[in-house]
């Protein structure tokens, strides 16, 4: 076995730190009053210096409030997504860089050594050290009350736990016996794997450290069953509901739920500065207003938001554009990062055995794909701005090849009809519709989650195309929950949903979306469930192509070289494209993004997706600033 040491050095860290950071006006009064230490004492010894000029942006000035509109309390996590402060994070070129960490070393994807920034502090001023990692690992992840079924998936490889070591107060190491290549990407993910927790704060809820009577009182006051429920509730980092929970993100929540209006305030101990030595973020506060989501486009058009994309749809674009000058904002169009805006998912686990046989016939799936006139759909519904493509990666991904996008996506009804005849659907009824081998009419009922009006519009057009193939298509919207259950139980023969969630991957991302790994993959829910439950539930994969995908995924996990990972990705993409497991229609659709005219550094064109861009997160909203007088 060849041992290779891969050291990631962050060039930015080598820039000598001018030790004269400028005080932020927001905190000036507090510092003068002695309530807060001066900025030099708040920053770590080596803060992360963000060189804005090098990024092609302008360094700015602090101040202002970012107004955003959200639906309900669950949307609090949007701030965690937009903030995007992670141990390691992706930059705009999707390279992993140290962020909260000062540096990190990886050996064979098995030994991960993390170096923290000396002097880095939580938002309440307490030091952030190896103890916070130790607390999470020993007192949370390994605690059977908090994690009844063992540590989270990203921390175990085939059920095997890592060896955790504290080297010194600023260095920790995780060692697995077999490679865990998904570890760093999951730390960098939009919904990251949290492997640290503010130990100094949470120990008061843990019976190993807390006074028993005190803790019992707290449990009683919170109306929860026991300490574990209290600990769980107080320690949510992804959805920052607890205003007392210290954080490392640029903004911290100051409002206790329930509320309709949440205010986030800048974190005085945040670890990033700009090249001029100004502590980031530039924006002082976030004001999040909750309300009816259907009203959000109207409110945005009346100028109630400074930077908003969530709950805005492409249909709202012209409406938003109308009020652009009156209400002092601009509307940009960002590219959505789905593999397909809407894709047909033939359910290979359908309960109806006749249909199952047909759906598993690749000729049938290819025929449906060839029978869709994507060009018309693009022109009718997206003004021709979308890209006609199968459900695969976008051209922005280094893994993209045109043949994945173009496989069986040309409009060819004659060929489609031939394939359908060959697939055993050659008999027709008196009105020309195809019959199943058992004599029933081959009507395709496509179910949708019913929440996305564009799906209905697309299905309307696809239905017209399919009638030329002698197939009748019905659209059946239902509630998302019932929809999911009906798919897993096999009652649905075909569904429509978004394609690949992350369609701009690089080879360091795990290709799990291309193999049956989750119940939420509507083309093979039972196989996915089988994988998720380690063979306890669902059905084992019983077609060779899907088995091959699973084997390739295993190979990616064991791969030692980047090149091998690349080749696995390519094979998996190629199999998916050739087998048409999902029938993609269009991708590269546009997401309207409303930006206040005074807000600087917001890119005009960018990728908008949950993964990998964490919505705005990848573009560092802590570097956005208001060019306004008096602020």
């Amino acid at each position, binding site marked *: 076995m060849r041992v290779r040491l891969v050291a990631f050095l962050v060039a930015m860290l080598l820039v000598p730190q001018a030790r004269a950071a400028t005080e932020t006006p927001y905190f000036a009064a507090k510092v003068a009053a002695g309530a807060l230490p001066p900025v030099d004492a708040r920053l770590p010894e080596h803060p992360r210096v963000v060189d804005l000029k090098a990024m092609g942006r302008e360094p700015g000035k602090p101040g202002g409030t970012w107004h955003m509109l959200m639906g*309900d*309390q*669950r949307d609090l996590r949007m701030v965690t997504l937009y903030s995007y402060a992670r141990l390691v994070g992706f930059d705009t070129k999707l390279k992993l860089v140290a962020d909260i960490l000062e540096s990190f070393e990886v050996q064979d994807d098995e030994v991960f050594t993390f170096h923290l920034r000396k002097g880095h502090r939580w938002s309440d001023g307490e030091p952030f050290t190896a103890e916070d990692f130790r607390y999470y690992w020993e007192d949370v992840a390994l605690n059977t009350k*908090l*994690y*009844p*079924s*063992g540590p*989270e*998936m990203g921390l175990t490889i085939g059920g095997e736990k890592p060896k955790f070591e504290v080297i010194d107060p600023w260095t920790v190491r995780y060692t697995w016996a077999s490679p865990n290549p998904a570890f760093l990407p999951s730390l960098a993910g*939009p*919904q990251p794997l949290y492997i640290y927790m503010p130990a100094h704060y949470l120990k008061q809820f843990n019976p190993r450290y807390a006074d028993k009577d005190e803790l019992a009182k707290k449990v009683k006051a919170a*109306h*929860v*069953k026991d300490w*574990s*429920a209290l600990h*769980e*509730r107080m320690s949510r980092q992804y959805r920052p*509901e607890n205003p007392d929970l210290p954080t490392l993100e640029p903004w911290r929540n100051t*409002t206790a*739920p*329930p*509320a*309709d*209006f949440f*205010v986030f305030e800048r974190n005085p101990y945040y670890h990033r500065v700009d090249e001029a030595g100004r502590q980031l973020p530039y924006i002082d506060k976030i*004001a999040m*207003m909750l*309300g*009816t989501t259907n*009203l959000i486009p*109207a*409110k945005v058009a*009346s100028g*109630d938001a400074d930077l908003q994309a969530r709950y805005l749809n492409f249909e709202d674009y012209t409406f938003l554009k109308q009020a652009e000058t009156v209400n002092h904002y601009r509307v940009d169009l960002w590219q959505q990062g789905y593999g397909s805006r809407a894709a047909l998912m033939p359910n290979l686990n359908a309960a109806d055995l006749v249909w199952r046989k047909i759906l598993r016939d690749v000729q049938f799936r290819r025929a449906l794909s060839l029978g869709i006139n994507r060009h018309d759909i693009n022109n009718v519904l997206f003004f021709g701005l979308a890209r006609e493509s199968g459900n695969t990666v976008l051209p922005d991904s280094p893994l993209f090849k045109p043949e994945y996008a173009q496989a069986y996506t040309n409009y060819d009804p004659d060929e489609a009809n031939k394939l359908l005849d060959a697939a055993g659907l050659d008999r027709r009824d008196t009105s020309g519709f195809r019959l199943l081998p058992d004599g029933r009419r081959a009507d395709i009922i496509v179910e949708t*989650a019913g929440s996305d009006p564009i799906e209905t519009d697309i299905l309307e057009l696809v239905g017209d195309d399919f009638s030329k193939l002698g197939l009748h298509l019905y659209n059946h919207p239902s509630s*998302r*929950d*019932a*929809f*999911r*259950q009906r798919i897993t139980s096999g009652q649905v023969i075909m569904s429509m*949903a*978004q394609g690949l*969630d*992350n369609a701009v991957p690089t080879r360091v991302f795990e290709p799990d979306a291309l193999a049956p790994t*989750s119940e*939420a993959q509507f083309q093979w829910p039972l196989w996915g469930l089988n994988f*998720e439950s380690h063979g306890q539930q669902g059905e084992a994969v019983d077609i060779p192509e899907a088995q091959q995908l699973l084997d390739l995924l295993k190979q990616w996990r064991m791969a030692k070289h980047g090149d091998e990972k690349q080749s696995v990705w390519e094979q998996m993409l190629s199999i998916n494209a050739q087998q048409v497991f999902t029938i993609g229609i269009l991708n590269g659709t546009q997401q309207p993004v409303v930006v206040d005219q005074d807000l600087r550094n917001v890119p005009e064109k960018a990728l908008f*997706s*949950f*993964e990998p861009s964490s919505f705005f997160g990848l573009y560092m909203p802590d570097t956005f600033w208001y060019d306004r007088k008096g602020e």
Partner: protein
Amino acid sequence: MLRYLARRLLIMIPTLFFTSAIIFTVINLPPSDYFSNYVAEIQAQGEKADTSRIDFLKKEYGFDKPPVQRYFLWVAGLLHGDYGYSFEYQLPVRDVVGDRLYLTMLVSFSTIIFTWLVAFPIGIYSATHQYSWADYGLTTLGLLGLAIPHFLLALLFMYFANSWFGLSIGGLMDPRYLNAPMSWDKLRSILAHLWIPVIIIGTAGTGAMIRSVRANLLEELQKQYVTTARAKGLHPFRTLMKYPFRLAMNFFISDIGSILPSVVSGAELVAIVLSLQTTGPLLVHALQTQDMYLAGSFLMFLATLTIVGVLISDIALAFLDPRIRLQGGSR
């Protein structure tokens, strides 16, 4: 009278028991629960739902127990004044409903008073000036108010308020007061925003009430005692108020029963459209996400208010109109 009251109060117990059973059954009818719903929604956005976390929550909220057991746990809690726990908000239901209840009551009471203030004078005028132009005109207006759905009116209001006057859309107060404790400034801000929902919710009620007042009064006005009173030279206004109007009030009193629950729940649809911080949107959202204890406890609360309201209106009727007897059938 006391016996009657005791009997009515005792009947309330089985009624509420059945209501609670129906509510619980209906909420549990869908083949899923809050957690599967939550997981489905999270995954639809590309996020990963941590199954071990979900298992933890399910266990904590007793979802590993059979429904019957959960039902009795819930009812036992209700009897102790414990309304259960909202999954969505991760808080006791009592805390979630909290302030919203007061705001809802404020909106509802204002609406009711608005309705009365507008409907009674118009109704009386229409009845006393039957088939005049004013009667036709006001009746048409009332019918229009009755015919236009609340939420549509709310949408129109919002659109024009925004495009003509530049008013912000929705809300019951200026955003900066949302988390602030109650103060004079906050109250003033609420009152400044209150009139829009009051008018919108009030129009339909006003229309209906105008028609009822008019019809009931017309019936009385044609009776002979009115003619006699007039013939004897009683002042017309006193004639009207002393007898026919009081008699025409019976319908109004019996209506109180249905007013009580609506005071608490508010007009859900309008509240959603206008983003009001009232209980209506809370209830609808809880039902959508199957946040069962929040929804169930709230519906139980409404059911209790309905039953109490009916009782109150029955008793009030008996006091107001001696012709009505409480014990039926003892002729």
